[in-house]
């Protein structure tokens, strides 16, 4: 026979006003198995909780029912209380007589009757509650970081410095990301590469970081603490363990006319290349689409067209037959830090909702460039050696028009959000331009100047007040090429005057978008993303770097447009979350998971089909000699989230969801 205590809360007047709490306590006291039933003004108060604790000891209770507010409000509180009193916390349940009763009814008699019913259900249910212990899952104290930009680098270093191993996967041949392409950074104008390169080297040399550049995540299995990740190491055509990065192969490569990705198409590179001199790792990659040898092999040519790189390589590191390889890594947590791409204004777009800018010529006018291209022009390591020269004819542009919010904040073009960084980097561009081109005029068309951040507004003011940038509040309706100049037709909304500018070059601050392929990666990780492809955080305010999938975290511009300080802060936040997770060798989880009765399971596996998490597995029951008796279902407690869909679908009811077992529900319905 059970020994149940019922505790009816008045919640001040909140319950007591419409529910006769004393009558509820009395009625429940008469239920079989109830040995103690009282009402009290504030059950959740210290004295209220003390009453519960005291009663547990005095009456040797093996079940506590608190008839009070919603379990979403105080279930944790009271379960803690009973745990402190020495009984298992899952032997405490709540009857919701406030939100579901006193607050929504006026008739005292009806409300009291309903409160008695609701409490009775729970009393009957709790007779079948059993003590449950938290599930312990072993944790692999090793993290995977996807993306080797500044966010990924920061996360990897922080986790590794914290003492745990990290696998850093980068899809490009080198880590560094977009930050390595930037000239100077706002608002301090310190050189981007100067602050980034040491961090890249640190990653490379860190004993606890395994760097896998030119690699992509292929498959993700498992769950928090226990992920198994398959990484595809793309074939470089170069044996990384032999190559010493001397660069001779790049010098002899006959095809040097390939648009450099690193220089945003403004510079050239050979078919065998490292993206930039400070690349980490400093090992070249053969661009198979542009290499004569591979092009020939694709056409089934009898003889290889060119092997100059192989001939010149003293280390014999060139390996034309190298294939992609797949590596399996076991990790306990994953950081997604895949960064961004820039929107382009071309007519063809990758998403139907997004359209280009026909009014700006759909990207066909030379000398209309984007922000990253300007960064490369301004960068000392760029194709012009840091001189601002326009791409079409190499002339120094005397009038440069900068347009903000290209794509961003323009629902007609398919993107509603603000890209956040453009106001700042355009201000920076005007400063760099002012310093580099004397007598040049920068004209900026803006919608608003959004310069929220430490030293940010001061920075934009400096661009306007000290660096002679002409800021025009308005948009450009059209631009076209007229001889040597670009005719820019805009409107100054402050003076109300149309503006016709003959520009030598136009820089578009195009929107930040997540990297292509983000959706498929998100699906592999079972994390959700918004309609633009940005990864959703678990809570916009309180869980900004977690995702809805436990063990998967997000940092940087793959979550929303972010500048460098934001991305770094997020990365460090993910690292601290992960180090916290890794601080214990085992993870504790609520034990409200499904459990299979292997004795009665017939192995039809309806449960496997309905499980949203793939938590149900096949299990072979064998006799002592190892002969197979039957194959049954088994729930992986680490993966199960406790929805119970398996149980409702099980014909023989051989699977039970702990905390909501058939016994418990049956008892509650039976009390109806």
């Amino acid at each position, binding site marked *: 026979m059970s020994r149940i205590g019922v505790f009816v809360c008045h919640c001040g007047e909140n319950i007591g006003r419409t529910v006769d709490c004393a009558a509820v306590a009395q009625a429940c006291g008469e239920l079989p198995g109830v040995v103690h039933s009282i009402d009290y003004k504030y059950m959740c108060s210290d004295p209220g909780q003390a009453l519960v604790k005291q009663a547990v000891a005095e009456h040797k209770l093996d079940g506590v029912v608190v008839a009070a507010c919603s379990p979403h409000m105080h279930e944790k509180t009271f379960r803690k209380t009973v745990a402190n009193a020495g009984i298992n916390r899952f032997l405490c349940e709540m009857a919701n007589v406030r939100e579901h009763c006193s607050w929504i009814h006026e008739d005292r008699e009806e409300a009291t009757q309903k409160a008695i019913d609701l409490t009775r259900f729970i009393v009957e249910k709790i007779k079948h509650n059993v003590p449950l212990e938290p599930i312990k899952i072993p944790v692999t104290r090793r993290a995977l970081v996807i993306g080797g930009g500044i966010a990924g680098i920061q996360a990897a270093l922080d986790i590794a410095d914290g003492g745990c191993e990290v696998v850093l996967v980068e899809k490009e041949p080198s880590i560094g990301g977009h930050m390595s392409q930037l000239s100077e950074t706002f608002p301090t104008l310190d050189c981007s590469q100067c602050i980034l390169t040491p961090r890249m080297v640190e990653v490379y040399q860190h004993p606890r970081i395994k760097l896998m550049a030119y690699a992509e995540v292929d498959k993700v299995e498992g769950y928090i603490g226990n992920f198994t990740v398959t990484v595809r190491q793309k074939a470089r055509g170069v044996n990384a363990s032999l190559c010493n990065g001397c660069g001779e192969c790049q010098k002899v490569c006959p095809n040097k006319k390939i648009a450099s990705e690193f220089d945003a198409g403004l510079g050239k590179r050979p078919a065998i290349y490292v993206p930039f001199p400070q690349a980490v790792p400093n090992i070249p990659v053969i661009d198979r689409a542009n290499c004569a040898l591979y092009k020939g092999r694709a056409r089934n040519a009898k003889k290889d067209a060119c092997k100059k790189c192989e001939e010149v390589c003293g280390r014999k590191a060139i390996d034309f037959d190298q294939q992609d390889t797949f590596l399996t890594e076991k990790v306990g947590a994953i950081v997604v830090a895949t960064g961004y791409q820039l929107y382009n204004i071309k007519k063809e777009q990758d998403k139907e909702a997004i359209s280009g800018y026909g009014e700006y010529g759909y990207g066909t006018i030379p000398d209309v460039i984007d922000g990253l291209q300007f960064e490369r022009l301004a960068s000392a390591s760029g194709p012009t050696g840091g001189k601002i020269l326009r791409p079409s004819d190499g002339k120094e542009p005397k009038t440069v028009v900068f347009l903000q919010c290209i794509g961003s904040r323009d629902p007609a073009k398919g993107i509603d959000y603000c890209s956040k960084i453009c106001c700042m980097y355009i201000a920076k561009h005007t400063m760099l331009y002012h310093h580099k081109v004397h007598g040049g005029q920068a004209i900026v068309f803006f919608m608003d100047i959004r310069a929220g951040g430490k030293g940010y507004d001061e920075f934009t003011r400096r661009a306007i007040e000290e660096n002679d940038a002409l800021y025009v509040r308005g948009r450009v309706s059209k631009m076209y090429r007229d001889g040597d100049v670009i005719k820019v037709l805009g409107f100054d909304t402050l003076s109300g005057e149309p503006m016709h500018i003959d520009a030598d070059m136009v820089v578009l601050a195009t929107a930040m978008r997540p990297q292509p392929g983000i959706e498929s990666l998100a699906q592999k990780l079972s994390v959700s993303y918004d309609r633009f492809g940005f990864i959703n955080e678990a809570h916009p305010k309180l869980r900004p770097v977690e995702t809805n999938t436990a063990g998967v975290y997000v940092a940087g511009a793959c979550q929303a447009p972010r500048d460098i300080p934001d991305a770094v802060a997020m990365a460090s936040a993910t690292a601290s979350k992960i180090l916290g997770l890794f601080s214990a060798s085992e993870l504790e989880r609520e034990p409200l998971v499904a459990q299979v009765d292997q004795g*009665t*399971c*017939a192995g039809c*596996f*309806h449960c496997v089909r309905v499980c949203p998490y793939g938590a149900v597995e096949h299990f072979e029951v064998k006799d002592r000699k190892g002969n197979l008796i039957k194959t049954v279902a088994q729930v992986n407690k680490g993966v199960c989230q406790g929805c119970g869909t398996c149980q409702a*679908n099980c014909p*023989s009811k051989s699977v039970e969801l702990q905390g909501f077992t058939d016994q418990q529900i*049956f008892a509650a319905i039976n009390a109806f």
Partner: protein
Amino acid sequence: MQALQELARKLLTDKTANVVIGWGQGPRGPRPIFVTQPEHADRLIFDTRCVHNLATYLNPRRAHLVPFVKKAVVVKPCDARAVAGLIRETQVKREDVVLIGMRCGGVVRDSDMDGKLTEATVSPRCMDCPDREPKLADHLMGEEASAPPKGKGPDMIAKLDAMSPAERWEFWQKELERCVRCHACREVCPMCFCDRCIADKSMPQWIESSPHPRGNLSWQMTRVMHMAGRCVGCGECTRACPVDIPLGLILRKMTQTVEERFGYRVSDDPTVPAPMGAYRLDDKQEFIL
């Protein structure tokens, strides 16, 4: 019939199968027989009186047949659908069974009847059956079959649908009050293979076990729910019922619902996933507020 016997003899001789499950002549018409010796293969027969669904003997619950491992079964199209169901639900391995498929143009209501197939004698199970030959079979026998004769009598589903809920309740109460809870409907069903049926579960006892109308009703409703998207329409439950409750009626109603809603009809292709346990984002939900 000769071809059937020859094949059975061959399968037993070359040990492709250790037992051939088929029909043989009994005192009151054909009955299931298990042939284990090649020389007994000539006991096998097949005609319109072979009503039993022999797939039920593949069900692992039939402990006495489990040791044979490799089994050959003579199947009509409805039986083949049951075999497919057992394979789909991992109760039978396809490689462990040899299916001797019989082309079928319908069977009579029971095995002790005269085998003549007419509007009056055709089994109700055959009226909705679209299959004339089991596609899953390893060996196909018998002559091209034509569609079975249309049965006589009112369309009971339409008749019940036209009633008020209270009238329908009354109808079923009259039928179910005869139920003695012998569970023959379950025992004969090829798709009922649970080690421990929910009807026998006592903690909690969802379904009262005594032959009380309350338990009888919830037993049948539960049985039909468990059959949703799985019932092969062989009609064996109706035939086995000693008190003649029209169980097939509820199953046919459920089958119609499943087909209308999910576009699914139980077939003998084990690779087609069942509709329950699956979903479409755009499943109809007109009944949900």
